[in-house]
């Protein structure tokens, strides 16, 4: 079984919502669409207060290089363009749309349920389409997808890797997309393969999903140049550098991008939205997300396709309120996801889940002195020394930490997960990375 070499941990999988088919979540009453839902600069709004918008209409345009278009997820009128609180409580500029009773799509969007198999667009047209439809990476970083397909001069893409590892505990949205939309996903991958101009695309998928693997392998026979690669179950199998190593045995050096070793990595969810964008002309206005938690009954585990701008509280209301013992709500997986404070905050493009975690599970034990057991060193998939960072950071020696390759850390959380002394290693490293970036900017 293929896997990466260094480090890694085995958190409890907790994939309890795998059997819940993807359901369409009802429209919200008011949609709050942030102008910055992606990595990079915020988009510039092209609508004003009082404008009527249709579903799928462009409402904010990308003007910077690293930026993505934003389309209206609903039909209605623009209530205001103002700062709104996101799920972490921070104020960000958003377009607020009051939702009309009847939904009206933009004419160009193909809303029929038929699967469109022929890829008619040329390589360049596909990339332009991806850019126009505001597709961003749905694996978590929300990096605008089209930039990955603008290969810099002197570099050559050899492999397209599709990340379906879904190594995070709890998350099942990728699992369900593969099962419920197998053919669309594979068409999406073919589109991406054409856009990149490579002969081969690999789908990396963790071996704990036998059903999706079987389905993909069965269906992939009808497609040219798509291979399914089952991977060993080990966190963080879905991290970009680890995935590239597992599948191609190539190592992305420190500070380099996947394209430097001839690889482009996309999430399987992105492949699905690329299918919708390129083949059906549908912009990225929905996200497929998991609503799960150990305290919820089997009937209340859901996988939804939700419009962007829907508040998290709508999801909570859908299942009849949060369970009594909910202590933490996480957007994303338990290893790298973020805890939210403002449940009225809206869903954005990269949202992949709403996890309800009980107090017992989320509790962080009191910090103790490091006993230098080396478990963090053993767990680190980048081969770093978190214990050393911790002592350097606590003494304010950020530069020395950077000399020990602190910036290679991808904050996967393996060190904190395995630390017997419960030291907040990942927290400290994250702080140091922020400080170092600030120091660099000052220079």
């Amino acid at each position, binding site marked *: 079984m293929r896997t990466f070499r*260094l480090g890694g*941990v085995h*958190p*409890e999988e907790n994939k309890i919502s795998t059997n819940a088919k993807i359901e369409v979540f009802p429209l919200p009453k008011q949609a709050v669409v942030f102008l910055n839902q992606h990595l990079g600069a915020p988009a510039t709004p092209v609508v004003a207060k009082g404008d009527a918008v249709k579903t799928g209409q462009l409402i904010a345009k990308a003007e910077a290089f690293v930026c993505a278009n934003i389309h209206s997820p609903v039909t209605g009128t623009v209530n205001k363009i103002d700062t709104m609180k996101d799920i972490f409580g921070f104020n960000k500029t958003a377009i607020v749309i009051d939702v009309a009773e009847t939904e009206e799509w933009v004419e160009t969007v193909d809303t029929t349920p038929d699967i469109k198999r022929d890829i008619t667009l040329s390589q360049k047209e596909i990339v332009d389409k991806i850019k126009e439809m505001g597709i961003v990476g749905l694996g978590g970083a929300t990096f605008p997808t089209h930039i990955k397909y603008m290969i810099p001069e002197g570099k050559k893409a050899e492999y397209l890797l599709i990340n379906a590892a879904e190594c995070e505990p709890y998350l099942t949205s990728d699992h369900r997309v593969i099962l419920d939309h197998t053919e669309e996903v594979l068409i999406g991958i073919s589109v991406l393969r054409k856009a990149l101009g490579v002969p081969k695309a690999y789908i990396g998928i963790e071996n704990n999903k036998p059903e999706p693997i079987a389905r993909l392998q069965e269906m992939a026979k009808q497609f040219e140049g798509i291979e399914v690669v089952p991977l060993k179950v080990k966190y963080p199998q879905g991290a970009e*550098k680890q995935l590239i*190593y597992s599948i191609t045995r190539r*190592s*992305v*050096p*420190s500070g380099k991008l996947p394209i430097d070793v001839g690889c482009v990595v996309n999430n399987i969810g992105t492949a699905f939205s690329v299918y919708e964008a390129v083949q059906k002309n549908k912009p990225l206005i929905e996200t497929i997300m998991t609503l799960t938690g150990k305290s919820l009954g089997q009937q209340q585990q859901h996988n939804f396709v939700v419009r962007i701008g829907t508040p998290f509280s709508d999801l909570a209301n859908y299942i009849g309120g*949060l369970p009594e013992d*909910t*202590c*933490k*709500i*996480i957007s*994303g997986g*338990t*290893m*790298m*996801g*973020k*805890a*939210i*404070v403002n*449940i009225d905050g809206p869903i954005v493009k990269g949202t992949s889940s709403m996890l309800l*975690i009980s*107090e017992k*599970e*989320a509790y*962080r034990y009191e910090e*103790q*002195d*490091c*006993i*230098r*057991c*080396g*478990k963090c*060193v053993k767990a*680190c998939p*980048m*081969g*770093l*020394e978190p*214990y050393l960072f911790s002592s350097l950071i606590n003494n304010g020696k950020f530069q020395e930490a950077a000399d020990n*390759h602190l910036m*290679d850390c991808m*904050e996967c*959380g393996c060190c*904190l*997960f*395995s630390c*017997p*002394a*419960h030291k*907040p290693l*990942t*927290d400290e490293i*994250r702080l140091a990375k922020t400080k170092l970036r600030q120091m660099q900017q000052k220079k």
Partner: protein
Amino acid sequence: MRLLNVSGSPHVHSGESVKRIMWDVNIALIPLLLTAILFFGFEALFVCLVSVASCLLFQWLIEKFLLKTKTTITDGSAIVTGLLLAFNLPSNLPLWIVIIGALVAIGIGKMSFGGLGKNPFNPALVGRVFLLISFPVQMTTWPRPLGICNIFSNGAVDATTGATPLAAFKEAVKNGTANFDMPNLMDAFLGHIGGSMGEVSAIAIIIGGIYMLCRRVISWHIPVSFIGTALVFSAILWCINPSHYMDPITTILTGGLMLGAVFMATDMVTSPMSKWGKVVFGIGCGLLTIIIRNWGSYPEGVSFAILLMNACVPLINKGFKPKRFAK
């Protein structure tokens, strides 16, 4: 609804804790305790109890009255130190010496550096070496082990005392008597030889070591490289002059080598972090042990070897970094 809790990722934990690690070590030490009682009678148990109790007491006193911090005696680390110290002592040692050893081990070996995790040297070994230098006579007079049948017969223990095979061998080499009576290998393996309480029985140490390996408290690197180096090095010497040097199998089965390699050198706090660092550490311990045994004035060199290598750990950590991704 209650207040939402917020923290940085990750939001789950493996459940590993310092307490659990320390108690795992304690569990791994149980076979040693049983063999100690088996071969040296209930006197051995008394020494262990006194050692553990005084370690706990000193740690509590120091934390309560000197450092004025929260007491950490429940984490089990003081019990580990107490047991390991006791296992490095002869079973007939006067109890007041044991208490002094515990004071040095906890007070100087551990707490003076700031407590668990900050000590550069293995506390139990600090205590043991202090006693060895301060009370050489008491520390090198070992009772002969009892037969399994006469554990309960009192009085027999104090009557017979003698040197360990190592000391006897050294004496024999010094006097030029070439034909030294080697201990039966099976006896050495089971523990029916003279020596400190915990170091005599190789089988008990191996059982404890396997338990710790399964629980991932230790990794194989240090014990294997330590014992392997000692084996190879002594084999080379033995090939050169079998009458002057001890044979390799007896070398590793006698004295504190097994105990040191499995329980003392693998102490997390005082051993290197990376795999290669651990291997280097083990090799250094093995070499130093054989050198001290053969050319030093002491018949046994495990404690000194480990303490010397403990001092090198920061350097090893600096020199042998873990392998980085894409490097």
